[in-house]
């Protein structure tokens, strides 16, 4: 299998080609099956690759050779790649199957099943890249797929704007990423991972720090870290399976993957790690506070995703890469589950996404409720579900990093931020669960028509629920020495945490603390929303103005709109005016001047003979006069 790693991306690519070319006219509903089959093939091939356990690099073809630059398209397959591939293809497959049901009544069914495999192809290529250019290429391609899928319902103005916003914010991130790549080339004269990593040790640490920070800007864009997080909540305009797959489970984790992959670059300078951890911890808490007051079920989940991604970056910053990847995997399971569950609810409620119109759905949507609850518990990191294991490791890692002698004390602060985020996570998760499934129906008519989703949608939910329940314990127990740890142990550049005796006690007490905090959050949500009439403004009672600030997402969208978008437009307008009036004006002025001079000169020719005679005579007289005077 290792000789032919290109087979894995080939399967979804074929699905894309078949569905894209033949789908709209001939295949129609069959595209769903073809798409799912392609992804399943990719998943099975990945499993095969994993089972064989042989890893390495392979070059596919020479992309470009010019002067001193030679770039090959190739594949790097190692443990990290395999974990990512398993998560990506596995979750993708489930989402594809789910989409067959979810999108069944959509007029553009075939188009959907063309773009989705294209996304999987790009994502697979992204994680398999063995050089920076390939990474960047597919990094952008997943962005385009995201653009196409967010704007899938293109007659919605909001969807178009969201798609554009997603692409542009990502471009801003890619701006940093691209600069990093160019700097890497001119500093190391190569773009291959291995060759670059081998040289970073000898390079100027400051330069490497700049490169690392620029790479991180790219990661921030893709993984929606503050302040480049603004596109992700809007991206929920896309169909819910897209939100589940791209904007929760896979694409947005590309940034985490990238930083983990580039660990040797980030490790060179501790400032880089500090920035990564700081941005992550801040975003985790920041997004969680916003999630607390949102009433659109998908937006709550979107902010939750931003928050969880923040935790992953906290882990990366703290140096516990395994924990980051571990959380990436478990998060993929339970967040995909939550999104698909919310999709099932939205489907049942006829495309209504406002939680204020939900309520009391648990009797009508039994399966959805059950699986959603599992997902919620996992997200809240309640023992022993998946989220607990990975999140606990992150928080422990951050604390240890802060407490250890060579660590940075700031990580204790980050740990506290993460802990606060956990509290809020549990709070908003249960707020969401309670508002959706408990209490009395708030919109009787919608409630009346609600119905459980078909089996093709429920089955993936059930499978994901199983994963969300068991994956943490299976992969992550015992802590620091679970399956995933041992597996990733072999991956290059992944650092490890070895616990000594008394640190085990600290670790256990940290786990107890974070579980207690999570339970506290859940209890809080129960206290506020389960008793009496649940009101979204409840939290506003504590601090006046707080609710509005949070509900408006700290006004960041407005700041960006007026600060950056409007400024750019005004600048463009001014430059246009300069271009049209001054630059072109000068050209026209020259033309006009020549014409005017010609016009003036033309006036001398009146057409009257006597004028001409006069000029002739004048010339003669003046000449003679000059001759007389100056001879």
């Amino acid at each position: 299998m290792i000789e032919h790693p290109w087979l894995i991306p080939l399967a979804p690519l074929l699905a894309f080609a078949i569905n894209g070319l033949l789908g709209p006219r001939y295949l129609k509903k069959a595209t769903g099956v073809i798409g799912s089959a392609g992804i399943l093939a990719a998943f099975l091939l990945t499993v095969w690759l994993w089972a064989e356990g042989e890893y390495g690099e392979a070059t596919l073809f020479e992309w470009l050779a010019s002067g001193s630059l030679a770039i090959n398209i190739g594949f790097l397959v190692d443990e990290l790649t395999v974990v990512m591939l398993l998560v990506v293809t596995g979750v993708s497959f489930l989402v594809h199957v789910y989409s067959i049901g979810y999108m069944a009544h959509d007029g553009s069914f075939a188009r959907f099943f063309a773009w989705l495999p294209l996304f999987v192809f790009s994502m697979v290529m992204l994680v398999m890249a063995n050089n920076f250019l390939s990474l960047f290429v597919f990094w952008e391609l997943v962005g385009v797929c995201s653009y196409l899928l967010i704007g899938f319902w293109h007659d919605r103005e909001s969807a178009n704007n969201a798609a554009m916003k997603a692409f542009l914010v990502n471009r801003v991130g890619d701006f940093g990423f691209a600069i990093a790549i160019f700097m890497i080339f001119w500093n190391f004269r190569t773009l291959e991972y291995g060759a670059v990593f081998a040289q970073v040790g000898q390079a100027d640490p400051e330069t490497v720090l700049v490169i690392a920070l620029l790479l991180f800007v790219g990661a921030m864009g893709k993984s929606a870290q503050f302040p480049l997080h603004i596109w992700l909540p809007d991206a929920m305009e896309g169909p819910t399976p897209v939100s589940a797959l791209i904007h929760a489970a896979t694409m947005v984790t590309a940034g985490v993957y990238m930083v983990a992959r580039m660990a040797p670059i980030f490790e060179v300078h501790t400032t880089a790690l500090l920035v990564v951890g700081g941005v992550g911890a801040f975003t985790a808490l920041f997004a969680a506070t916003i999630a607390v007051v949102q009433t659109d079920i998908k937006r709550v989940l979107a902010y939750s995703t931003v928050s969880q991604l923040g935790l992953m970056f906290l882990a990366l910053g703290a140096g516990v890469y395994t924990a980051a990847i571990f959380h990436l995997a478990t998060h993929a399971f339970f967040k995909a589950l939550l999104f698909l569950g919310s999709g099932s609810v939205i489907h049942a409620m006829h495309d209504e996404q406002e939680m204020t119109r939900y309520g009391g759905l648990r009797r009508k949507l039994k399966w959805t409720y059950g699986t959603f609850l599992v997902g919620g518990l996992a997200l809240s990191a309640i023992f022993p579900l998946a989220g607990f294991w990975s999140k606990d490791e992150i928080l422990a890692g951050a604390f240890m990093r802060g407490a250890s002698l060579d660590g940075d004390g700031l990580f204790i602060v980050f740990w506290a931020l993460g802990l606060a985020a956990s509290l809020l996570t549990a709070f908003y998760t249960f707020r969401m669960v309670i508002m959706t499934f408990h209490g009395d129906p708030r919109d009787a008519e919608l409630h009346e028509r609600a119905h459980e989703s078909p089996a093709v949608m429920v089955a993936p939910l059930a499978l994901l629920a199983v994963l969300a329940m068991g994956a943490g314990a299976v992969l992550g127990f015992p802590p620091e020495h679970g399956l995933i740890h041992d597996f990733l142990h072999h991956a290059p550049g992944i650092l490890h945490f070895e616990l000594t005796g008394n640190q085990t006690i600290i670790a256990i007490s940290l786990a107890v603390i974070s579980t207690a905090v999570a339970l506290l959050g859940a209890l809080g949500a129960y206290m506020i929303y389960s008793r009496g009439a649940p009101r979204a403004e409840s939290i506003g009672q504590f601090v006046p103005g707080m609710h509005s600030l949070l509900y408006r997402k700290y006004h960041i969208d407005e700041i960006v709109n007026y600060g950056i978008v409007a400024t750019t437009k005004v600048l463009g307008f001014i430059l246009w005016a300069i271009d049209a009036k001054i630059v072109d004006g000068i050209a026209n002025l020259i033309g006009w001047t020549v014409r005017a001079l010609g016009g003036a000169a033309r006036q001398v020719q009146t057409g009257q003979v006597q004028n001409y005679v006069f000029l002739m005579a004048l010339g003669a007289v003046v000449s003679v006069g000059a001759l007389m005077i100056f001879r």
Partner: protein
Amino acid sequence: MADSLNAYLYVGAILFALGMLGVLVRRSLIVVLLSMELMLQGVNLTMGAFGVFNEDMGGYMLTLASLTIAASESVVGLAILVVVSRKARELYTDRMDGMKW
């Protein structure tokens, strides 16, 4: 006075200048042509006087040539005048300004 070259030159100069004045200021095309003849009178007189006082036949020759040219010129000029008079009834110079640009 009659045997001084300067006197003849003065008269020639005055005739020439008056002729030119006529060419410049008269509106009637035929009078413009007449004024040109007047200018030639001044020229003839000047050249003739030079020939006599310098005792050189060249002056006579030039005067004869000038006479010939005056004849040709007036013939062609008058022919043009006839043509113009066919196109436009008026023979005022300031109304003929088609020859420009």
